[in-house]
């Protein structure tokens, strides 16, 4: 006897859960968050053309490469975000624990989770379309619409390819023939985790190639070459084909995934390596700090890694973005790379504000945080976290342009990281109310830097 519930039954349950979850958050909070999202998008709009679309100031005959590059990079970003979104829903969705003890239909579960993830990506695609409006204004509606189609296709492809890669990774994790390879690349992680860590790399690589080709196709189509339509459609076609393969793969690996994830968790939970389980990303850097500062920095490192690991991990998207922005011969490349890494620094700096909001108030009495020490500790953590994307972006600039230009990238990123750390430390003192001024500060700092540096003839 297997499950008899139709797909619509799963959809109805997920819809109810989503509606009540949203209601529990409160209309005001949801409205504020949506408003913040719109405000950030609008605030970033004036920066987009000078930072990422500077080619629009040149003659129209030179736009082709710039347009293809801009849509390609935006598509790559959406592809990566969608892959991570698939990870957070299909593999580690919040409903897995409740469902994995019942004979649910994995194909139906995966389908409704992918639909939910797709809905979650719509605002990002819309924000990208808004941020790309200078293209519509300068180059025309058609090139803009074609580019948006590429970006939306990248999101769809990222979601489907991510789901396939992650479900496939479960089969790899369980297959003893892959064990030698996984052991070779797993580092301190449990073997099955290695399959999951690297799962999105091949899907992003292949998907990335399709998206870049689609971006070229969009430009070609905009110039009247109809063959470009095939390339624009390619991510969509690949996503549709891939979607056809999801149900059978889900039926094969969705239930085993629960066992694999439990295995990973059990091993991380210190049964095997208790010392390693206690360590967190970059905690070793506190050894160079005085005791008072080091203690607070360690708390923040631990909070970031254990409570909001996705925020820390997403920094590598900033690294990817910094490489994409810096890998150019254009004059503004090093600054753009630095600015993207700086966005990563401001992003991760928010952890200090979240930490202050999430920690119980009595900790403030038991564990006082002298402002100067807290400021130093927060700045240290944010700079340490942000150094990753900064160094990766600087390395790309160093290879493409030269070491001198890489210093500019590094300087912009590290300077912003220090300021972000300071701002986060100050805003953390307002606990839950500190996030809005922190975001406002981030937007102002980004805008100010872009205006000052790019306006200075860069």
């Amino acid at each position, binding site marked *: *006897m*297997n*499950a*008899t*519930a139709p797909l619509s*039954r799963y959809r109805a*349950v997920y819809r*109810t*859960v989503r509606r*009540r*979850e949203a209601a*529990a958050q409160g209309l005001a909070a949801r409205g504020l968050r949506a408003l913040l999202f719109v405000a950030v998008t609008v605030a970033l709009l004036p920066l987009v053309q000078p930072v990422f679309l500077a080619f629009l100031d040149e003659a129209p005959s030179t736009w082709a490469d710039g347009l293809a590059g801009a849509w390609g990079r935006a598509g790559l970003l959406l592809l990566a975000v969608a892959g991570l979104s698939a990870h957070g829903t299909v593999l580690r969705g919040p*409903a897995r*624990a*409740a469902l*994995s*003890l*019942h*004979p*649910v239909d*994995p194909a139906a579960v995966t389908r409704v989770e992918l639909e939910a993830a797709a809905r979650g990506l719509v605002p990002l695609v819309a924000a990208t379309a808004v941020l790309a409006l200078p293209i519509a204004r300068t180059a025309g509606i058609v090139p803009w619409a074609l580019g948006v189609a590429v970006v939306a296709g990248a999101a769809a492809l990222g979601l489907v390819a991510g789901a396939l890669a992650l479900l496939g990774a479960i089969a790899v994790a*369980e297959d003893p023939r892959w064990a030698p390879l996984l052991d070779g690349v797993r580092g301190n992680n449990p073997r099955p985790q290695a399959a999951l860590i690297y799962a999105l790399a091949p899907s992003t690589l292949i998907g990335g190639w399709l998206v870049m080709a689609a971006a070229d196709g969009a430009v070609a189509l905009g110039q009247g070459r109809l063959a470009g339509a095939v390339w624009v459609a390619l991510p969509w076609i690949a996503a549709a084909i891939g979607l056809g393969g999801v149900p059978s793969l889900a*039926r094969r690996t969705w*239930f*085993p995934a*629960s*066992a*694999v994830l*439990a*295995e990973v968790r*059990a*091993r991380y939970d210190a*049964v*095997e*390596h208790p010392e390693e389980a206690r360590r967190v990303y970059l905690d070793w850097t506190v050894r160079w700090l005085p005791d008072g500062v080091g203690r607070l920095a360690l708390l923040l490192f631990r909070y970031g890694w254990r409570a909001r690991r996705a925020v820390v991990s997403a920094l590598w998207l900033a690294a990817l973005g910094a490489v994409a922005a810096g890998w150019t011969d254009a004059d503004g490349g090093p600054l753009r790379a630095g600015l993207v890494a700086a966005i990563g620094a401001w992003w991760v700096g928010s952890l200090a504000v979240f930490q202050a909001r999430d920690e119980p108030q009595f900790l403030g009495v038991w564990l006082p945080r002298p402002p100067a020490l807290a400021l130093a500790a927060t700045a240290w953590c944010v700079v340490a976290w942000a150094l990753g994307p900064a160094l990766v972006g600087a390395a790309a600039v160093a290879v493409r342009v030269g070491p001198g230009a890489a210093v500019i990238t590094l300087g912009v990123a590290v300077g912003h990281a220090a300021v972000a750390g300071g701002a986060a430390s100050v805003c953390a003192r307002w606990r839950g109310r500190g996030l809005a001024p922190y975001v406002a500060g981030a937007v102002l700092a980004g805008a100010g830097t872009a205006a000052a540096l790019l306006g200075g003839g860069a």
Partner: protein
Amino acid sequence: MSAPVVQIAGVSKTFGRVTAVDGVDLSLEPGTFVGLIGHNGAGKSTLLSMLVGLLRPTTGTIRIAGVDVHADTRSALAHLGAVPEHPALFEYLSAREHLTFVRDVRGGGDVDAALDLTGLGDDADRPIREYSQGMRRKTALAAAMLGTPKVLVLDEAINGLDPPSAARMKQALRARVDAGTTVLLSTHVVETVEAVADRVVMLAHGRVVADVPRGSLGAGALEQLFLERLEAEQQARRSS
């Protein structure tokens, strides 16, 4: 004697250098109430997690109603109702909605009867996220029993319930056993097993150290036997 509905053959589970379950062989017949007792860290939850497909054995196989749990988890779950140590439920559904969904997935079951069993009353229509631990546990138990599965695997499922609820659940489980269901209930509370089990399996340091019919033991003898076997197992480990 009928064919076993649960077959655990040579099952071990290791995490690196730690052996959580060590060569367990068990066969459970239909219509048996089996109490699984053991000290904290004896491997009870690990064994039960493997039984329901949430962990894969390092060695050995587990079959539920003839289905290999790890080769075809979904089919095995159709014969199995389970309550893990920390029940996971849809937090934003009410107990009634949760049970209705489970009934639809399992293809049958009486939701109203299941709700009566929980004794939640009007609370059955409140979101589960507002429930106490005991209310969650009762909801999970009712969900596990929907669709009359052949086997119920319950990890510390009765601990922490208020006395009337615990008595009602024990009575309901007994009725299921009498109707042919096999119940495997893990606990570290010896009195619970003494009250309900037909057969007692004792686990110490991952190994089965005793497997006896409850009827063969006099009042209070279970705790004594458990302590003796545990001591013997610890001595054997020290000497090896």
